[in-house]
């Protein structure tokens, strides 16, 4: 009876067994964007520390962030930020116990995605026009 390791129990089915739904995809994206934003905070630290360090280091960072690849990463960061924010608002609604019915749930999923895309587009339109 002296077992050392955990018991070999059957595992519940995971992602690959279910037909994807907008609710499920938004849930997965919430976690992925959260993890991406975790790493992405380094972009903010590097920018702020460079600014505080002086003109030369700031110039270097500004040049990297302003390059095509830099802009691409920042574009992704912007979307991840808004996607996670909209996903969070969806969770606030669910936390109150509302919006869990099938129709509302699906609408909230699409609203999350459309909201994040619109906000990202808006931010970058302001950037290009400003």
């Amino acid at each position: 009876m002296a077992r050392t390791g955990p018991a070999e129990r059957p595992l519940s089915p995971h992602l690959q067994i279910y037909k994807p739904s907008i609710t499920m995809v938004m849930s997965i994206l919430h976690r992925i964007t959260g993890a991406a934003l975790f790493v992405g905070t380094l972009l903010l630290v590097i920018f702020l520390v460079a600014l505080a360090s002086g003109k030369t280091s700031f110039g270097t960072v500004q040049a990297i962030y302003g390059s095509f690849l830099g802009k691409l990463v920042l574009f992704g960061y912007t979307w991840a930020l808004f996607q996670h924010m909209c996903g969070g608002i969806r969770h606030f609604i669910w936390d109150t116990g509302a919006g869990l019915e099938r129709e509302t749930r699906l609408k909230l999923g699409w609203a999350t995605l459309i909201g994040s895309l619109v906000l990202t587009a808006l931010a970058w339109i302001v950037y290009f026009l400003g």
Partner: protein
Amino acid sequence: MSKSTESLSTPMARVRGLGAAKSGTGHFWLTRLTAVANVPLTIAFVVIVLMLAKADYAAAMKIVGHPVAGILLLLFVGSATVHMRLGMQVIIEDYVHSEGTKIVLLMLNTFFAVFVGLASAYAILKVGFGG
């Protein structure tokens, strides 16, 4: 249930804290609290970043050095780093099942969040107090 006669603690008290997270609602609540704060702070953050996007050194120093921008950035960094530490903690607890690796990653998670928070705060304050 026979063991309950050997101890004065209730069955509930003996299992409390033995789940994967080892704690109660504190984690859940702090996640929500910082999430609520993050909504307006993120919008403020994006606005500040857009102002900084095309700024040269002198302009950037002026923007980050302004008390309103500096305070909003500090609040954002504070709330966001607490929130991301909690979120990454859940991800680690979900996917890392080896106890040793899990503890090491949870420690690194905290170190990273504290580093991001303090390094950012130091830089913002340095700029704010005159570079």
